[in-house]
């Protein structure tokens, strides 16, 4: 089977060599909403009209990262890419002209800027470089070779050891060691085990998983299949939110292709390993990103969390031992197998290994998607890669971890970005949303916004979260209106403490975080709004 992969890869590379020029147009959600599809059509039309089909191909690729400058186009001639920004369909003739001449200066996007040069791409290595709707493209980039290597040459224990060695931790936010999770599921008893990919990304301002699924869906499938082999599972589910139609479409296509090629399904790679994957769509509840609620939802029940333990590793989907990891976690796996666990462990900090994908949003110049090594300073992300604060405002804070996270103020900008450091400043790594706030934002409003989110997304099962979020939201509204008293702030703190310590699931436990972190770092803003 590995030979067949190599054959496909060679055929693809040969086919690519036929074309002196390749025009890559981003067709992930960000650029698509800026008419990226029309740009692609126009370029293809222009190439055809000039009879250049034999020398140039124009194709859709995944996200190239700098979403704010979309639609992005990369013209690759002789292996060297030239990037263009804010391309419109009307620019097509000029771009095709440039194939044999000078680059189009007015659209040039310099790639020697820190936004590109300071990133380390593992999860996103194929994003923007391959056509996400063609399995052959993925194979040509080395795809599925890790899976077949594992099946042919490694025992499940060896796979788990490799993941252990990599030091990879869950990228969904909590940072649980992935190798440990896999080994507990592998040890659990039972014939029917499940592997679930959590793609119910729901934090406001976060779009990492969506982008990975839209840009490189096969990488996630490959990671899941390797996991299934390691833990002894035959069935897998991808739980993806219905609000991601493009990701769903590309996943469906990827599943069909992988089944056809024998990378999924019965007797994967003609070995005695079966693994079939199904999609399940979330119906719009944030809480379904919590693993026990997600499992209940797949089972067809009301999506509500239940008390842990037992953890899904012990009793998960339909009572069977279940491995559940996030999209980005699975997307790391093929690279870990290809380059070895020690390689990933060489990147990052002592306790946080590898890279992390972040979605930059808010009052920052370069909004988009980045992948950086763990331990990078916040300042480097925001000022170097992100280009600093947009407009005339001054940097005030960066919000990480969505409604479960907190706001980190300027004095902590030199802090390394890793799981432990972020927790120290009452925030969390979270799934990777980073929202930059400038001095036009009121931190009380920010806390209130996230509390409103938690309030309307609380499932209603346990009392502290169901009622506590409403009461905290009420107090924050009162304070924001300038009607609050010192007693209200004290009560707010008391409620935060209670909700944090008594709620049933992570959503409730973390719901007070935006309040606690803004109270810790920006208490003066609360005080300034108090009455009398």
């Amino acid at each position: 089977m590995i030979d067949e992969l190599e054959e496909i890869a060679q055929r693809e590379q040969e086919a690519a060599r036929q074309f002196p020029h390749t025009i890559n147009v981003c067709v992930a959600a960000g650029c698509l909403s800026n008419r990226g599809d029309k740009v692609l059509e126009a370029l293809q039309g222009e190439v055809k009209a000039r009879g250049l089909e034999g020398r140039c191909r124009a194709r859709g690729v995944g996200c190239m990262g700098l979403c704010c400058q979309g639609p992005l186009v990369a013209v690759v001639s002789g292996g060297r890419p030239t990037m263009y920004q804010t391309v419109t369909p009307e620019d097509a003739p000029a771009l095709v002209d440039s194939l044999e001449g000078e680059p189009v200066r007015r659209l040039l996007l310099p790639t020697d800027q820190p936004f590109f040069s300071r990133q380390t791409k593992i999860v996103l290595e194929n994003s923007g470089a391959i056509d996400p709707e063609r399995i052959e493209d993925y194979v040509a980039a080395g795809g599925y070779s890790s899976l077949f290597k594992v099946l042919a040459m490694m025992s499940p224990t060896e796979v788990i050891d490799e993941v252990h060695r990599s030091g990879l931790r869950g990228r969904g936010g909590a940072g649980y060691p992935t190798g440990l999770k896999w080994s507990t599921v592998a040890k659990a008893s039972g014939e029917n085990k499940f592997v679930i990919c959590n793609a119910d990304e729901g934090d406001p301002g976060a779009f990492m998983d969506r982008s990975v699924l839209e840009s490189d869906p096969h990488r996630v499938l490959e990671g899941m299949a390797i996991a299934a082999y390691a833990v002894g599972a035959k069935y897998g589910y991808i739980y993806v939110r219905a609000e991601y139609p493009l990701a769903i479409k590309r996943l469906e296509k990827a599943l069909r292709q992988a089944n056809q090629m024998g990378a999924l399904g019965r007797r994967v790679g003609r070995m005695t390993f079966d693994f079939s994957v199904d999609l399940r769509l979330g119906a719009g509840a944030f809480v379904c990103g919590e693993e026990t609620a997600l499992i209940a939802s797949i089972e067809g029940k009301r999506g509500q969390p239940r008390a842990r333990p037992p953890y899904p590793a012990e009793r998960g989907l339909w009572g069977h031992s279940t491995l559940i990891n996030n999209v980005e976690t699975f997307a790391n796996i093929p690279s870990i197998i290809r380059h070895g666990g020690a390689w990933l462990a060489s990147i990052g900090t002592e306790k946080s290994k590898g890279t992390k994908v972040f979605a930059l949003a808010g009052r920052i110049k370069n909004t988009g998607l980045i992948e950086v090594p763990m331990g990078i300073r916040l300042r480097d992300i925001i000022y170097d890669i992100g280009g600093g604060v947009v407009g005339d405002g001054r940097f005030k804070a960066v919000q990480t971890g969505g409604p479960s996270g907190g706001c980190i103020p300027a004095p902590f900008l030199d802090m390394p970005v890793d799981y432990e450091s972020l927790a120290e400043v009452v925030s969390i790594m979270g799934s990777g949303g980073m929202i930059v706030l400038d001095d036009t934002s009121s931190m009380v409003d920010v806390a209130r916004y996230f509390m409103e989110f938690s309030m309307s997304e609380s499932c209603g099962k346990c009392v502290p979260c169901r009622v506590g979020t409403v009461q905290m939201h009420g107090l924050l509204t009162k304070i924001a209106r300038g009607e609050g008293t010192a007693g209200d702030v004290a009560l707010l703190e008391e409620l935060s403490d209670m909700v944090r310590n008594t709620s049933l699931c992570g959503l409730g436990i973390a719901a007070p975080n935006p309040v606690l972190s803004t109270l810790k770092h920006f208490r003066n803003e609360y005080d300034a709004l108090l009455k009398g």
Partner: protein
Amino acid sequence: MPQEVRIRTLTIDGRPVGAREGETILQVARENGIAIPTLCHLDGLGPIGACRMCLVEIAGSRRLLPACVTPVAEGMEVKTDSERLRKYRRMVLEFLFSERNHICSVCVSNGHCELQSFAQQHGVTSVRVPYLHPRLEVDATHRRFVVDHNRCILCTRCVRVCDEIEGAHTWDVMARGWQSRVITDLAQEWGTSESCTSCGKCVHVCPTGALFEKDKSVAEMVKRRQFLPYLKQMREPRE
């Protein structure tokens, strides 16, 4: 062959107790006469750990754990009462009182309401958070029973007894967060429900005056739950 039973020993409030593996902290505490307050839990129904009244402290764990769903472990040191736990329990009760409309003096369950009793036991004499007082409907379309959503604390005992014991699954929960509401069938009037067998079990497991029988006075509307442990016992597989 007798079935193998594994025994665990632990301490609850300093008292050494023995337990069978798989038993919950709540079960063992009650067997030993140690009271832990519960609202959503009811003997005979599947536990859900939702009301958070039964949270206990466990030595060596930062997290508070719900006694109703936490299995015992060897050497566990459980504390069922502390200043901190009492404070949190009072706040749970305050939250419940603030969430809907619990005016005892005009409630058919006055004097035999679990929420009211707990408030008295835990010294909740006032509620420090604002009352949300939503105006919810009262469904009196059923021939014999009434559901008053204003008194509901969303413990879902009715949902569970109807599903687990009666097997009708007439009740369920709709919407989420504080907008949640118990519903009959697909959120239609109770009187038009086709799955309801009118057994009345839901009424009698309800801890408050949210579910009650028509034409009953306060004194007559005392809930009777004796059937539940009996039914459960009779359904246990025998050797």
